[in-house]
């Protein structure tokens, strides 16, 4: 038997509870608001936090884009898109600038987001202090007391061990000068996109039952020391082997035939857009 699901899967009571949590999250930027994370038809840790936010805010006129580590066509992204589409009937897109709601795992798109967009990030570990303190009560107290020595110490130890901060992804940030926040495992390359963003950024951790947010035009500063400034991944001298882009986040791949190291845009829709632009330009010049 196939049951008819309610619009956007959730009952209205669940939506209200999540909507209230989002409101508080927006009002207290970077603070993790607890919420009653629901059992979802996908496994915890597969984007249930993001999915619950998406389902609670989405309406009939929205256009949804879902990305998983930069890709529109990966299994996780496709499953989430299917679930939302089947329960709401909203239009789906792969083009960043056409979407009104973007759910993303571990990337912020290369194309700059606008005021009319909301980006929902999936978060596995929302607590930046968890590595230094196992107790939830203690970490909540540390946030209350503005005591972030633990997270600074963590970065300091990385510098002692490796000569640099070795966070690779999920590099902690200060939001509005008050809360230290885990920006979800986005590469450091994307951290600057959180600062004074035009779009509203919502973050959801389903397993850990937390929702938090970065409102637009909010200061977001990556944690760094004066003598060890924050640095992002560099791709100097490298370019995408498909579209040739240079100033984007690149994946390092090995060509299975030649065994050579090649680089490719991580944001697949951006890459396709560049290729289409090139193809269009070629057609115009060859038939001109």
């Amino acid at each position, binding site marked *: 038997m196939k049951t008819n699901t*309610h*619009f*956007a899967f959730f009952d*209205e*009571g669940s*939506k*209200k*509870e999540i*909507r*209230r*949590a*989002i*409101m*508080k999250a*927006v*009002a*207290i*930027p970077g*603070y993790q*608001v*607890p919420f009653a994370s629901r059992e979802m038809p996908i496994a915890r840790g597969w984007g249930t936090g993001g999915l619950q936010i998406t389902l609670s*805010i*989405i*309406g*009939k006129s929205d256009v949804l884009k879902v990305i998983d580590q930069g890709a529109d066509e990966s299994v996780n992204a496709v499953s989430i898109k299917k679930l939302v589409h089947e329960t709401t009937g909203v239009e789906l897109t792969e083009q960043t600038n056409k979407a009104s709601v973007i759910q993303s795992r571990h990337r912020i798109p290369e194309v700059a987001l606008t*005021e009319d967009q909301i980006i929902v990030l999936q978060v596995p570990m929302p607590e930046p202090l968890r590595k230094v303190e196992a107790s939830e009560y203690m970490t*909540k*107290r540390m946030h*209350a*007391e503005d005591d972030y020595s633990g997270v600074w110490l963590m970065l300091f130890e990385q510098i002692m061990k490796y000569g640099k901060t070795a966070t690779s992804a999920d590099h902690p940030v200060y939001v*509005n000068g*008050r*809360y230290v926040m885990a920006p979800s495992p986005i590469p450091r390359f994307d951290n600057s996109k959180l600062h*004074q963003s035009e779009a*509203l950024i919502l973050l959801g951790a389903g397993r850990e039952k937390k929702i938090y*947010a970065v*409102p*637009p*035009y*909010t*200061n977001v500063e990556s944690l760094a020391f004066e003598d060890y400034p924050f640095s992002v991944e560099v791709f100097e001298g490298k370019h995408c082997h498909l579209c040739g882009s240079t100033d984007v986040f690149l994946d390092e791949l090995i060509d299975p035939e030649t065994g050579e190291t090649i680089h490719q845009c991580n944001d697949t829709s951006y890459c396709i857009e560049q290729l289409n632009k090139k193809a269009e330009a070629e057609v115009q010049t060859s038939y001109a």
Partner: protein
Amino acid sequence: MAIDQVHDLQQVYRKVLHSMSRPGTISSLADNAKKVDFNLSCFHATFLSAMTFLDAEVTFHILSTEQQSLIDKISAYTSSKYAPINEADFIIILQEDTEESIQHAFAECKNGTLIDPQHSSIWIIESSTLSNSGELTLTGPGIQHEARLHTSLSSSLWQARNERTKEYPLGIDLIITDENAQVVCIPRTTTVEITGVS
């Protein structure tokens, strides 16, 4: 036509969320307000906001003592329970409420704790027509440079609000509604300066 509990309230929510994330940005709920066919002693935008956020898990308080029928209706439509001012999650201030009673409400309402700053009250407060040319200058998260706002709340009420949000992250978040079904939000992070005369 009756309001659609699913789609109208979703639209209202997104408008309020847009305004809450961009303090000073006025959103219009006029399309949804048209469908409100109840005879209520509050603005349509106030009622829609209450319908959007209230349910059995939260409590509300209406400041006015003469509004038993509105309390009963909101309770009946949302299953939300009425609570005293110092316990309520949502506080509804109607236009008829006096300056003195609102001052008192600002002092009494809950504004969270340092461990749980979300345990604070959200105010749904009625004003005469809102506009972006006014006596208030807003700055803070969600505002690129600064925003201007006009409400009918007096400067002493804004001072009372500022007093309750001084100890950030403690604070209260306001949803201000008007008779034209417009809403504007002032979360606790917004610095409100009274720059002109009202």
